[in-house]
């Protein structure tokens, strides 16, 4: 009995010690300096893109630049983000930046932020709220445009190849159903498909943004549809899986292969894949939102108004470019 009690006490002391130790650096008083406090509610660390995004914020909002960043990582759960925002309000932050896990369901907590007078800036994904005044502005890529860019690139590419009038069979590896990127990219690419009567969308199936699932679904596609011309993978990871599946099936892909691979995000690994000649194109989804958000905050600090919707610059990279040179200039 006594032993158990002793253990309990020791653990308790140790536990509080951990928190005390861990908190020392960040426990500087919030009001006694002139740093701008920014709370960033990040989605998680689920992909390369996401880590680059986090890194961009962490390197922009430094004390040297006049900020203190309170970073929270929601492990892909909306309820965790809601908790984080509530906690930011209590910590008296000056600005809240949210990269929402999902678009829906933010009414309550944004109202709380508004009531406390804290401006909310959205990053990456949009929020679907009935009252747009609940957030100040949104910064991110235009997923629909990304999808359309991909479609337009395909039109050009086919034209160059002289296949404009051929029947083109397409399969899509969708992202996690319901994610903004999935919705936007599916819609954007779909818009272009509608204009091209010779394009035939054979199938769409989710690969949940992961390489393993992308590979598994692609295997299944290859068996059901022997004559696929184009694979649209809604992120690079799924494209890698699809490429492996295609190769395993004894087919080839890339600029010199049987199947055209269109991908999104353009992470470093995608450049490698294009350089290796496996992937045709990757539409950039720029994760470097940090500097842009900092700009907005500076404007707001001066009392200026800002545009409600702010797109980051996004490019299309394909194998016709000098990819090694481009890759050298990229930060992620």
């Amino acid at each position, binding site marked *: 009995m006594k032993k*158990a009690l002793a253990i309990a006490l020791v653990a*308790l002391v140790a536990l509080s010690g951990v*928190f005390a130790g861990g908190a020392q650096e960040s426990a500087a008083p919030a009001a006694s300096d002139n740093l701008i406090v920014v709370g960033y509610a990040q989605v998680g660390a689920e992909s390369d893109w996401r880590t680059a995004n986090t890194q961009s914020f962490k390197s922009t909002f430094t004390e040297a630049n006049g900020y203190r960043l309170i970073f*929270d990582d929601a492990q892909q759960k909306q309820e965790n983000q809601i908790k984080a925002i509530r906690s930011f*309000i209590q910590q*008296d932050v000056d600005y809240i930046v949210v990269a929402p896990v999902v678009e829906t369901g933010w009414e*309550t907590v944004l109202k709380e932020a508004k009531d406390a007078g804290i401006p909310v800036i959205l990053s990456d994904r949009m929020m679907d709220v009935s009252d747009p005044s609940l957030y100040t502005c949104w910064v991110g890529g235009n997923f629909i445009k990304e999808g359309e860019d991909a479609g337009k690139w395909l039109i050009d590419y086919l034209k160059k190849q002289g296949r404009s009038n051929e029947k083109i069979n397409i399969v899509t590896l969708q992202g996690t159903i319901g994610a903004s990127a999935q919705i936007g990219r599916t819609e954007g690419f779909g818009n272009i498909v509608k204009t091209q009567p010779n394009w035939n969308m054979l199938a769409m199936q989710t690969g949940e943004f992961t390489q393993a699932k992308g590979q598994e679904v692609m295997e299944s596609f290859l068996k059901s549809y022997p004559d696929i011309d184009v694979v649209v993978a809604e992120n690079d990871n799924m494209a890698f899986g699809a490429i492996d599946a295609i190769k395993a099936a004894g087919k080839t892909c890339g600029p010199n292969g049987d199947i055209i691979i269109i991908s999104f995000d353009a992470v470093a690994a995608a450049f490698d894949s294009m350089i290796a000649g496996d992937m045709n194109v990757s539409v950039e989804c720029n994760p470097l939102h940090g500097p842009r958000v900092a700009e907005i905050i500076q404007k707001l600090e001066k009392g200026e108004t800002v545009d409600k919707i702010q797109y980051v610059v996004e490019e299309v990279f394909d194998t016709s470019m000098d990819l090694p040179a481009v890759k050298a200039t990229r930060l992620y």
Partner: protein
Amino acid sequence: MKLRRKKAFNETTFLLTITITLFFAMYIAGMIVFKNNGFARLQVFLNLFISNASLIVIAAGMTVVMITGGIDISVGSFVAMSCMMLAHMMERSGYGAIHSVLIVLLTGIVFGFVQGYLVSYLKIQPFIVTLAGMFFARGMTAIISQDMISIKNPMFLSWATHKIYLPFGGYTNRKGVLVIPYIYPTVIIALIALVVIWALLRYTKFGRRIYAIGGSETSALLMGLNVRRTRLFAYILDGFLCAIGGILFCLNTCSGFVEQAKGLEMEAIAGAVIGGTLLTGGVGNVFGSLFGVLIKGTIETFITFQGTLSSWWTRITIAALLAFFIILQSLLASSKLKKRR
């Protein structure tokens, strides 16, 4: 008489005491460490309840099932299904808020009944039944709709955003805005549900039978208790509480989508275990589970306040805490065995 009662050491109360002490110790430690960041504010404490209202109710349901010696791992999926049903009914099918809520409650009862029937009458292991339930509910969510649906039903939103202000503990923040502590109706519903379940377990025949069948099923049967029906009702109650939890969850998030509430079942189980409920059955208390959930919430709050830790630390800390409690329970149990020898 009094003296003897003292002598008969009750490990259940002891575990509960530790849980509660730990919670307060952690909380006070937090207030000291983060005293400049506003941790000591009343609202931070209230946020624990606001953010975990649904989990409190679901953990109570889990506790009931665990006392019977069972488990329900379908709760997370069921919450997702409830949210999707609410969102779909209100936004796509034109049902009113009240109707939608009632339908979800009914679904909870039916879901609990089916699971309970399979467990109690067909004697299939609870883990397997609720595993199937988990798959089923998650898949049904996707079948109802694969979209993300925002709830914009005015009545539902008015419930969700209706703040109940407390008359004390207000402060002015850096923006010069007076922030008055508040809670949402969800908190009140959760606490009422908790008290009702507590009373049900303590003061009704049904409640005592749940403990009896968890303590020893054969004995309960031979003592003339209807084991099957009791177990069935326990699962129905659990289903009903999950439906309430689902509605509370939806009031917090106001949306429905497939991926919602993933892993909630493990949080509920962790809450119950930290709160002193034994998976072997027969021992448990819904208030213990409440504190289990609050401890989990406090850790999460710590990590947000700390502001630089990555997400995996939440998982690792909760796991460490879980390990601590589990090992403590086991040490207690073995010391008790030794004493009896």
